[in-house]
């Protein structure tokens, strides 16, 4: 429960989204308790990213309501931090890591307000938090995949957002970088932030997420990962081209070629 007595920081009720007459999400009912971490899984095109974009308000649902911290409509400035998929960001942009993190401070500012020394301090603190201080003034494009993701997390930290939405943050990272990323997410959740991440990595769900939502255009399953991710539900989510093995609660997925 958050400080203002809310139970669920995100509430999605009966949301339906369609593009060009094609229904992408159908009648989604879902909620995320404040201070918890929720994972979203599902096949490509299953509507994971669309659901996140509905939360930030760039996609408007045809039907249904989205409540962020109990309120509908455009989320109040600085409340949400969205970390898009890797390929949506212009990595060769001429900015330093510090510049990127500083962008997080814009959320609560009016456009005429300038960057203050406090903003710079907050940005630097966020950079130290994700252990990127050595790279703070390097161009963002020079960083490795894991460092880039950490820089984007630092931006969310600098923003002091209550809810952090990540679209496939672990994709393309090696095992060590994934581990570092998940560790920081764990810490942020323990500080009371609400985390939502889409992922393809089923292994990390049981250890790092409190709940999981399986999307395939509609909700196929949701609940506590260990109980929800059974071979039966997973083959429902991913279709028949997938073999599922469980070993002491561990879930592994192998795609047939």
């Amino acid at each position, binding site marked *: 429960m958050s400080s203002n007595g809310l139970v669920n920081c995100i509430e999605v009720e009966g949301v339906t989204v369609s593009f060009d007459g094609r229904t992408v999400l159908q009648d989604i009912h879902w909620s995320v308790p404040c201070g918890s971490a929720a994972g979203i899984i599902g096949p490509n095109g299953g509507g994971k990213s669309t659901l996140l974009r509905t939360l930030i308000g760039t996609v408007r649902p045809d039907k249904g309501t989205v409540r962020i911290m109990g309120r509908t409509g*455009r989320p109040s400035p600085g409340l949400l931090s969205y970390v898009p998929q890797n390929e*949506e960001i212009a990595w060769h942009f*001429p*900015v330093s890591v510090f510049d990127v993190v500083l962008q997080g401070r814009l959320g609560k500012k009016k*456009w005429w307000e300038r960057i203050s020394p406090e903003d710079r301090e907050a940005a630097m603190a966020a950079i130290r938090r994700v252990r990127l201080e050595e790279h703070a003034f390097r161009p963002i494009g020079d960083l490795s995949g894991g460092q880039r993701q950490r820089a984007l997390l630092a*931006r969310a930290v600098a*923003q002091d*957002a209550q809810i952090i939405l990540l679209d496939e943050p672990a994709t393309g990272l090696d095992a060590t970088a994934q581990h570092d990323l998940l560790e920081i997410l764990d810490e942020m959740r323990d500080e009371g932030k609400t985390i939502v991440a889409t992922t393809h990595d089923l292994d990390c769900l049981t250890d790092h997420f409190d709940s999981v939502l399986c999307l395939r255009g509609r909700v196929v399953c949701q609940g506590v990962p260990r109980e929800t991710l059974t071979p039966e539900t997973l083959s429902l989510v991913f279709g028949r081209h997938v073999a599922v093995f469980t070993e002491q609660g561990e879930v592994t997925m192998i795609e047939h070629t």
Partner: protein
Amino acid sequence: MEWVPILLGDANVRWVLAGTLLLGISSGVLGTFAMLRRRSLMGDVLAHTALPGVAVAFLLTQTKSVLPLLAGAVVAGLIGTWCIDVVTRNSRIKEDTAQAMVLSVFFGLGIVLLTYIAQSGAAGQSGLNRFLFGQAASLVGSDVRVIAAAAAVLTLLIVLFYKEFKVLTFDPGFGAGMGLNIRGLDRLLMLMVVVGVSIGLQAVGVVLMAALLVTPAAAARYWTDRLGVMLVLAGAFGGLAGAAGTVISLFGPRLATGPLIVLSATAVFLASLALGLRGGLVQKAWRHLRVRRRVALENLLRTLYEAYERAGGGQGASRVPLQPIPETRVRQEGTGSGISRGTLRTLERRGLVNVHRSGVPGGERFIVLTAQGLSQAQAVTRRHRLWEMYLMYEADFRFDHVDRDADDIEHHLPPEVVAELERRWQRERAEPAVPPSVHPL
């Protein structure tokens, strides 16, 4: 320099020069964001769609004064953008195709209208053709005042919304999540590009205006990794190109200004591409050359060390005196691209080897490592072999591939990686030891 007072003494020339200078600056600044937002082509589309707007404005007002024509250009540009939007949203046609279609249809319409005006013999119609390729010399005081005002407003807006435009162009999704009005900002930027292109039509022309928007920005990217610096540089490059093109045009045999401005901008771009400090060609070539030189030096040192090992020296052995080795043998056993005279001379100059020349002219030369050279050769060889072992045992490289691939990367291994490799094989000893080679030498 006697032409300077002649040039600036003429009030008309001063106006023209001021106009193209300001135009270049605002185009460069605006073009930076257009390029970073991947809207470079949009500039070209907007310039071409403006032509029928200019023609219609002339038909309606029967004047060539700048404000109505500018308004016509802006309105036509906005209609063009709207058309692209409608086509992409309501059909299966993708954005680039829609842009190409709108560009050519509007341009075609513009040409038809211009031809009609020319044949109608309307009073004062002569000179509308300047909108095709630009004629800065036709700018008069009132034109320049409008251009200057518009350029100033555009530049001011960029300064005011600098932070927001930065987020819009770097990561619009994040901006939207944070509560920024991304859609509104995107529209504002597009409107600014429309205006920025429209004020340049008379001086640069619809055909080439896009180049003045994009080329200075592209050139500026070769000099900096900071957006603020890039904006200033792009503005400076644009202004320089505008002024230079105008001066050449005024002195040349009545050449159209547009192409000259664009060629000046291109000259700045080519110079930046070659000399730029952020990925310019000269810098890249210099770095490449330095790496190649270092690789050659290290390979020669390793060859000498391996010869020393064969003579019984090296790890664990008691001190074996260093033997001079004939140069021809070093060449035969050498790694990589062989040894150049330069490589050998560099090692000699650094005191790492001594070269003994036999008395006979053209006779055999003998190379021997100095004490300092031996310790460096040892370090180089150790690094090479640690890396080979890593590739074989950890990265599962095939045994016969190991030597060649180790060659590529070992020269770039940072010290902390070498330390980590050493830790893995527990070869940390007081003295730097060299593990045996994993393959027959």
